[in-house]
């Protein structure tokens, strides 16, 4: 909690323009020069909030999918769920749809993608890991190809609005409020569900034997994870590997209690993306990097390490 507050504060004080922490504080209070206020309130704050919410959404979505699949390699990006949401959102842009309807389309894309991946690989027991990953990778590749196709077919004036779906990017994020509107209630809902999820993580049969209504819980988690992914994608494009890295690191530190892991994922995921985005917008400023570059650079080694350890 403290760390996440600190990371937000740090992110707000950092930028391509140097502002003293005092100047930032004044701007937040509505004092100081108009320019500083604009910089902090209009540019940095929304972006930092968007980054934090995106990270939180993705990390929770990842943690939920890992429970659902009982596989620590599950992640919305790796499994192509983000890709599905991206394709649907791109289609929405091409059709001239925006706002909530676009988020809705992204949600349907995410659900479709999840259905595909889970349907093709979920119910196969212990041998499913390889199959799951292959299914996810192939589906992600398919979505990638569709994105390229849509970009190639799009009229030129729509392309700048579409490019960020290629790799997660917060440069374009302007409305973090939808993401927060989803993230906060999600965390609240998950609190009482945490114990049921703990049981579900031990397998559907075990969970049923301990009194969990497995079917409806699985369906709920499944829809929730899709929703979280879709909102994250409409906020920042497909930022990769957050859902993989964060729950993994937290499990190493906090153990496996989902009542802890899920809210902690929201916080830690928020921190990670906030810091990654701070890096992305300052490291070679004025050139800006997509935040997805940074998370992927963190995520790929983690993924390979997990795979290598073979405890799957």
């Amino acid at each position, binding site marked *: 909690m403290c760390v996440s507050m600190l990371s937000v504060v740090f992110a707000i004080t950092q*930028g*391509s*323009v140097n502002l003293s922490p005092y100047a930032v504080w004044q701007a937040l209070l509505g004092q100081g*020069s*108009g*320019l500083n206020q*604009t*910089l902090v309130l*209009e*540019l*940095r704050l929304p972006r930092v909030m968007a980054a934090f919410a995106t990270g939180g959404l993705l990390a929770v979505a990842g943690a939920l999918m890992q429970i659902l699949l009982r596989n620590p390699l599950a992640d919305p990006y790796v499994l192509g769920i983000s890709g599905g949401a991206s394709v649907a959102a791109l289609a929405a842009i091409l059709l001239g749809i925006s706002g909530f309807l676009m988020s809705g389309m992204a949600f349907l894309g995410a659900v479709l993608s999840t259905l595909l991946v889970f349907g093709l690989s979920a119910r196969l027991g212990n041998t499913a890991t390889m199959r799951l990953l292959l299914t996810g990778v192939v589906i992600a590749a398919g979505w990638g190809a569709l994105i390229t196709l849509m970009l190639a077919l799009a009229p*030129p*004036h729509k*392309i*700048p*609005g579409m*490019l*960020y779906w290629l790799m997660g*990017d917060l*440069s*374009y*994020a*302007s409305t973090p409020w939808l993401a927060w509107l989803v993230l906060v209630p999600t965390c609240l809902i998950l609190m009482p569900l945490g114990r049921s999820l703990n049981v579900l993580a031990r397998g559907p049969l075990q969970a049923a034997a301990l009194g969990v209504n497995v079917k409806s819980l699985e369906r709920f988690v499944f829809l929730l994870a899709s929703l979280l992914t879709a909102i994250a994608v409409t906020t920042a494009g497909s930022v990769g590997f957050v859902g993989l890295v964060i729950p993994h690191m937290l499990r190493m530190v906090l153990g496996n209690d989902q009542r802890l892991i899920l809210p902690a994922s929201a916080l830690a995921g928020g921190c990670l993306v906030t810091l990654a985005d701070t890096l992305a*917008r300052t490291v070679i*400023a*004025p*050139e*800006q*990097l*997509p935040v997805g570059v940074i998370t992927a650079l963190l995520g790929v080694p983690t993924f390979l390490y997990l795979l290598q350890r073979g405890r799957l």
Partner: protein
Amino acid sequence: MANPMRSLLSISALLLSGWAFVSNALADPICVVDDRGRDVCIDHAAMRIAALSPGATELIYAAGAGDNVVAVVSYSDYPEAAKSVTSVGSHTRLDLERLISLQPDLILAWGTGNPTEQIETLERLGLPVYYVEPHEFEDIARNIDNLGALAGTSQRAKEEAKRFRTGIDVLHERYKQAPRVKTFYQVWDEPLMTMNGSHYISKVVDLCGGDNVFADSPRLIPRLSQEAVLLKNPEAIIAGGMGERNANWLEKWRVFADLLATQKDNLFFVPPSLIQRPTPRLLEGAQILCEKLDIARARR
């Protein structure tokens, strides 16, 4: 959007950027129409201009307002003076913080290059945005006129616009009766790309009495196979590209002995910086291209 609203926004922009002290708010606003057909009105001549594409940078310098430019983007390499102006990142991903901190009072945006969301953010902050997207020769001249009006350098801008218009008219007169030359213009090598008839480069080809062999292609910038080019059998091939030295692009066509352009040795290079940006330098590029097509005619 209605004019009063826009001026209200501009006023608030000025307030925001600390320009409230300037007290001639009663002066007549300057209004022009940008390339998206929108009215752009500002209350004072723009003194701090951000040009968010290399092309826009060239245009604002051409309009005589180079001294008023406070921000450019990567690859804004012409004129030489533009290289020393603060960069606010690449045109696809702007460093908005840096841009805002430079306190611009006019944004020259590139609709098909800058991210829609970022330009919207700038507009929301009350900054006046002028879209630069020329498609015709006249658009280039008109943009120079408009930018001159916005920056208070109308005199020089009008001269430059006139020079450009006259130059194009001269070429038009010279080549309108000339025998047509089937021409393939190569935008890029790998993948092989050209442009269709609605692109301004195609209009340069047309101006010089050439026929763009892919003018009817449905896409603005089609990707092609070599076969498609061989099938069209152009009489002249002209290569542009990113750098100034890409003769090997042309060498590749020499393999095809049956190709008319190869037989006649009509493989030409036009410096891309002179033709692949819709700026006043296009006139120079057009002159070179026209000369090349003249050479092709002479070899008949």
